[in-house]
């Protein structure tokens, strides 16, 4: 390997969140020196995932098919649509086993100061999904941060104006907390106590 391909690897690793030049260098040396099999596996998995994964046409989460297995499952209640920020939030709600409806994953949150608005979040796609026939209630399960609250308010007013019944996770989750890091009992209770907005 010429030094330039080493530099390229280090530079490429820096695209990971929280990875600066020093950590990138450490990772590169580790992969090349200590764990070449792991490195090959990582490289292949990354290329493969990029190749086959796309956004589910129904829930916007990652899937290999046009529609993901969860959205295609006839045993789930299609009248309920739960809106979450990230796939990790969806996984957390699934773990509560308190919810059998479908999901919509925003893949982010409204953050005006970071330039993330309705266009970047593709809220038009959510509106189209939530106003489909058969959706009886939309449950907003965005985080209880300012950004999560702004997202919930925005989605609620957009859907409310279109006659969709909207509820919000009740505030059992600590203020400033994020679903991914909250205990499951709290999330389950918050689902039970969801309120109209």
């Amino acid at each position: 390997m010429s030094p330039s391909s080493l530099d390229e690897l280090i530079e490429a690793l820096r695209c990971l969140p929280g990875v600066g030049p020093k950590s990138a260098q450490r990772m590169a040396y580790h992969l090349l020196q200590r764990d070449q099999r792991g490195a090959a596996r990582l490289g292949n998995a990354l290329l493969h995932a990029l190749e086959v994964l796309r956004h589910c046409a129904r829930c916007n989460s990652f899937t290999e098919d046009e529609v993901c297995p969860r959205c295609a499952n006839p045993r789930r209640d299609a009248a309920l649509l739960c809106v979450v920020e990230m796939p990790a939030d969806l996984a957390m709600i699934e773990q509560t086993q308190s919810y059998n409806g479908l999901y919509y994953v925003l893949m982010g949150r409204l953050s005006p100061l970071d330039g993330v608005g309705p266009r970047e979040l593709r809220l038009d796609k959510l509106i189209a999904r939530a106003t489909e026939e058969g959706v009886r209630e939309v449950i907003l399960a965005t985080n209880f941060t300012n950004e999560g609250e702004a997202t919930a308010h925005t989605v609620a007013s957009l859907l409310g104006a279109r006659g969709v019944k909207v509820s919000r996770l009740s505030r059992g989750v600590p203020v400033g907390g994020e679903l991914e890091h909250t205990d499951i009992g709290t999330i389950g209770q918050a689902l039970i106590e969801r309120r109209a907005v």
Partner: protein
Amino acid sequence: MAAAKQRIEQQPAWVLHTYPWRETSLIVEIFAREHGRVALVAKGARRPHSQLRGVLLAFQPLWMDWSGGGEVKTLVRAEWQGGQPLLIGRALICGYYLNELLVRLTAREDPHPRLFDAYAEAVRALGRGEAESPILRRFELALLQELGYEAGLANEGDSGEPVRPEGRYLYIIERGPVRLEALEEEGAALDPAALGEQPLLSGQTLLDMAAGDFSRAETLGQSKQLLRMLINHTLGGQPLQSRRVLKELQEL
């Protein structure tokens, strides 16, 4: 000369914005009463059980301690002052607008205690659920005055004579309020295109603004246009993200 390492304690401050730093930390942009806008690194604040997680929220009054002499200081302590409900709904979106104005238009470590008080009052009023427009106009005006638009609203720009309530005015940047008749006499091109977004202002609007009174509907409408023009001018044409977001929401 190396900046002296200093420790600041118990500063009243608000979080304006945070963004991730390294694996588990946050960079926090704050607005502190005696120090203005300061960037702090909050070490470990993104760890799952960090005590700081629930404290470093925008629109909540805090007491903060920090240390260090570089451009980015180290957060030592953040304590919740309390007494301020979380902003919700439209008030929350308005809050983002206030924060973006401060981030974009104030320089780092430039103290603005008067502006700090105006900001605190605006956020508290938003928290009380008061009408949003007068809150925003009052804050925009306080911000512009702090940035040097001290030039009176209550006096004509050229003559210094008191503005007449029944007069009609244009506000010319770096000149102040000028009576429409005076402009016509000058033969200034009153072509609307040349005037751009210049709003026509009644003298009463200017006097109300100078007195901080936004109770008249006409004052509210005309001052919104005037303040927007002045803020756009101060921003040098760079659009505000929060304004774009609000506009996009209205279009959906």
